[in-house]
């Protein structure tokens, strides 16, 4: 049996989300629904009782095969605010280090009758693989797989943009830095083009921004000034230290000089342009402290928005899963 296309794998028979693996194949209606639902959850954090019962009685397992305190914590908070029972598993230091295969690990976790897996893994396609091989009624949420996708991060970025700019139509967005290794950039590019922005520019040296991205609908710029000229949104990406050793860049200082976002370079963007960063920030490598802490920075808003977006996605996927199971059971009953 051939594996499913991403869209077919993610949606139930009624076109509702049952997994959230990638933005590839998801249309504007679904993305807007995620944003609308996230908007409705945003005010909840300000209330004294920060919970809704949408996932009450459900078990969410955070399966992190790769460390990420920030993402894991926001997923955990999101699940708890939806009233789910949450288990955190750092698989990197447990089962797989004893030689257990990914499939064996999953089968054990399934046997514990979980309802949702939030998965982070260093291999591209890992979440897709898990969705293919899990029992059908477990919802899989991709919390970042290799270089492939980080769809909740992209959606929280979209929520941040919408809340600051009101709409996507007509916007020019620059994503700057290590595009090649960034799952965030890939998902952002898909989200931005689906939601109808006017232009997405990917900015960086050829070693970090290969030409193939142009075929995905982006405009490629190797010069920062041209890249952020008149943009409405500047998204800076984190530069991993190990990239300096891999012959991709000569040095941090040269990268900062050519592609770092400073007060001066930000002046090339529109006066009301916002500055985003998925974090954690390398101050003085991809962004200056003045800009990161400046009035145009919305970096901390992104973190807050992340909880609401994750709540939205988790509740939608759980609902889509349950509907799929109900439909299947009704079908069996009729037979």
């Amino acid at each position, binding site marked *: 049996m*051939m*594996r*499913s296309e991403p869209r077919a794998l993610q949606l139930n028979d009624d076109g509702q989300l049952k997994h959230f693996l990638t933005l590839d194949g998801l249309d504007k209606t679904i993305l807007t629904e995620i944003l609308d639902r996230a908007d409705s959850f945003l005010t909840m954090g300000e209330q004294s009782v920060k919970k809704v019962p949408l996932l009450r009685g459900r078990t969410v397992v955070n399966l992190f095969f790769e460390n990420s305190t920030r993402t894991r914590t926001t997923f955990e908070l999101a699940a708890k605010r939806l009233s789910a029972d949450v288990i955190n598993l750092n698989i990197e230091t447990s089962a797989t280090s004893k030689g257990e*295969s990914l499939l064996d690990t999953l089968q054990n976790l399934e046997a514990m009758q979980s309802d949702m897996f939030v998965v982070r893994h260093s*291999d591209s396609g890992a979440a*897709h693989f898990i969705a293919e*091989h899990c029992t059908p009624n477990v919802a899989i949420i991709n919390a970042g797989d*290799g270089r492939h996708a980080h769809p909740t991060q992209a959606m929280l970025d979209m929520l941040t943009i919408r809340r600051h700019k009101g709409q996507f139509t007509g916007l020019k967005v620059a994503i700057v830095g290590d595009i090649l290794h960034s799952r965030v950039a890939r998902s952002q590019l898909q989200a931005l083009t689906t939601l109808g922005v006017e232009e997405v520019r990917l900015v960086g040296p050829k070693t970090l921004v290969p030409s*193939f991205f142009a*075929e995905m609908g982006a405009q490629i710029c190797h010069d920062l000034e041209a890249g952020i000229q008149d943009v409405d949104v500047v998204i800076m990406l984190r530069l991993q230290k190990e990239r300096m050793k891999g012959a991709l860049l000569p040095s941090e200082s040269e990268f900062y000089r050519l592609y770092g976002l400073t007060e001066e370079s930000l002046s090339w963007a529109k006066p009301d342009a916002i500055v985003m960063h998925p974090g954690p920030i390398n101050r003085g490598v991809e962004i200056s402290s003045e800009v990161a802490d400046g009035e145009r920075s919305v970096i901390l808003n992104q973190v807050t928005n992340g909880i609401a977006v994750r709540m939205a996605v988790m509740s939608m996927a759980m609902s889509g899963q349950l509907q799929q199971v109900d439909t299947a059971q009704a079908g069996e009953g009729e037979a």
Partner: protein
Amino acid sequence: MKLIVQNGRLIDPSQNLDATLDLFVENQKIVAIGEAPAGFEDAELVDASGKWVLPGLVDLAVALREPGQTQKGSIASEGRAAVAGGVTTLVCPPDTSPIVDTPAVAALIQDKADEAGMANVFPTGALTQGLAGEQLSNMVALTEAGCVAVSNGRYEMKNNKVLSRALEYAATHDLLVVFHPEDTSLADGGCAHEGLYSTMHGLTGIPDTAETVALMRDLLLVEKTGVRAHFARLSCAKSVEMIADAKATGLDVTADVALHNILLSDDILNQFDGRFHVRPPLRGEGDRLTLIEGLKQGVISAICSDHQPHEKMAKIAPFAATEPGMANVEVLLPLAMTLLDEGDLDFATLLSCLTSGPAACFGLEAGSLAVGSFADFILFDSTARWYWDSSKRKTKGHNSPYFGDEFIGQVTDTYISGQRIYQLS
């Protein structure tokens, strides 16, 4: 023992033959076509009515996995799979465990192949000891022990000086060297063709320059040393051009391509399906079409299965974590014939690339129905519609993306040296 293969449609590109004629076999060899030789009596009759009689296929790349990896395959199991696919002669690579760098291992493989009594098996010997790329192997002893060529596979040579010396030594003794051109540093960490699809899916790419940079170096050293060279599993359009140029300048080089590299391109990566993880990777559509053009023009003269059987768990993982390779030798001919549906190749060219073409690359006495040849032939029902049921497969490998597919055309009988080795049940 005598045989008369009657009423079959004999197709043999090596003789430009395509006609309904009888075939006469005596003492393991084909002794006549059409008319019986004088005194040809008491022969067993083989009714080939309605079938095609084709030369046995010659496959230059079948990993048997024995010795050392019998959880994936064995000489017996993969030999059975080969004859079921119509392959009567196969060449296996040196990367077994232990490696084929001593005459004893080469002899072991051939002894086990004789014992299994399936396809004719010719091992390739290691070019360097342990394939470590440092110390030359006893390559003359290896060829005396039955190895038909020497190769370092995709294993890295320590440096170009060692490679150059190895080629000089092989040239001294007129040995055939098989190259798998790949610059290991450019390919490092990659699992898919570097292009739009690997970029979209965040898979580490293997650029086509990983192949062409190594190929250019290899061609320059072949020119310098005068060694006989075969370039295996080419995957890029540019490589076809480079081999054509090398041939035009008079270099003694041949080349082959894996069947999956001319059937599939990298758009299949959309499914993140590890069964399509192969090495070299499935390239772009332009590469695929140029490889086919290379076959048409005679630049590439062989298609091989690049049969790489794996146990089930080797492919149950995210794409990059799976082991590369497919196990398709059992359906080599019907699978190759799907190329005809698209009008890419004519049958004579296709069959030539599966029989006399590969035999000529390695100087093997196989792949032809000419009088005087060994009676290695197959009967093929070109109209049979059938499904490849994985539960009835002969290979130990679990890693074919074609299990469950419907094929048109099926090998019904395989004869080696006049003996029926396989019959469809």
